[in-house]
C-alpha cells in the first residue's frame, strides 16, 4: 500500500525566512510525485510533478526535489501570499493506475 507522510504538520515563518517542507513516501514503483498548494475553502492547485530521483523543478520561490524515499519543497524568501497548505501525493505502478495517495499536508503561515 502506498503511503505518504508530510512534515512538519504546521510551519510558521517570517517573511524572507527560507525553509523546507518534507514528504516521505513508500510506493511500489513510482510513476510520479505531485505537489499541490491549497488555500482555505478552495481546491488543491497543481504545482509540480517529479518523476525520478534527482529531478528538480522550480516555480518562483518554490523548488521541489526528489530522492528515492522523499521529496522536499524548498521555499526561498517566502512572502505572506505563500501562506497555504502544501500537499504531496504519489502515484504508484500497482493497483489503480490513476490513483493518487495524498499526505495530510503542511500548513504554512508566513508573517510580516
Amino acid at each position, binding site marked *: 500500500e502506498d503511503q505518504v507522510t508530510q512534515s512538519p504538520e504546521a510551519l510558521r515563518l517570517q517573511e524572507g525566512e527560507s525553509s523546507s517542507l518534507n514528504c516521505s513516501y513508500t510506493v511500489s514503483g513510482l510513476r510520479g510525485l505531485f505537489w499541490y498548494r491549497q488555500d482555505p475553502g478552495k481546491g488543491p492547485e497543481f504545482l509540480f*510533478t517529479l518523476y525520478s530521483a534527482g529531478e528538480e523543478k522550480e516555480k518562483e520561490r518554490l523548488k521541489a526535489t526528489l530522492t528515492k524515499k522523499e521529496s522536499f519543497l524548498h521555499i526561498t524568501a517566502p512572502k505572506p501570499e505563500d501562506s497555504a497548505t502544501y500537499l504531496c501525493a504519489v502515484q504508484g505502478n500497482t493497483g489503480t493506475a*490513476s*490513483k493518487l495517495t*495524498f499526505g495530510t499536508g503542511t500548513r504554512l503561515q508566513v508573517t510580516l
Partner: protein
Amino acid sequence: DAGITQSPRHKVTETGTPVTLRCHQTENHRYMYWYRQDPGHGLRLIHYSYGVKDTDKGEVSDGYSVSRSKTEDFLLTLESATSSQTSVYFCAISEGHPYNEQFFGPGTRLTVL
C-alpha cells in the same frame, strides 16, 4: 484555471436522504475522480472514471455510487446520507498517461444532520 465546476457548492441535508453532487468539465479530459477531504485524513479517493460509462471504486467507496453518461459530467450519489459522510468533496480531472497530474474543482461542502 482548469475548467471544472462543482454543484452545489454547499449543501445541508438530513440523515437518510439521497444526495447527488455534480462535476462538470470543459477540458475533454478522459479521467474524472471524486475525493473527500477530512481533517487528519487528507484527500481520499471515492470513485473514479476512465471514460463514459467506465467507472471503478476507490478506497472509501462504501455508501457512494457514481455515473458518467457524458465525457463532461461525473455524478456522485450518496444513496442514503449518514453523518459520517459530512465532508468536503472534490472532483478532479486528468488527461491520463503520460500527463498524470490531476486538476481539482472548487469543492462541495456537505453537512449531514
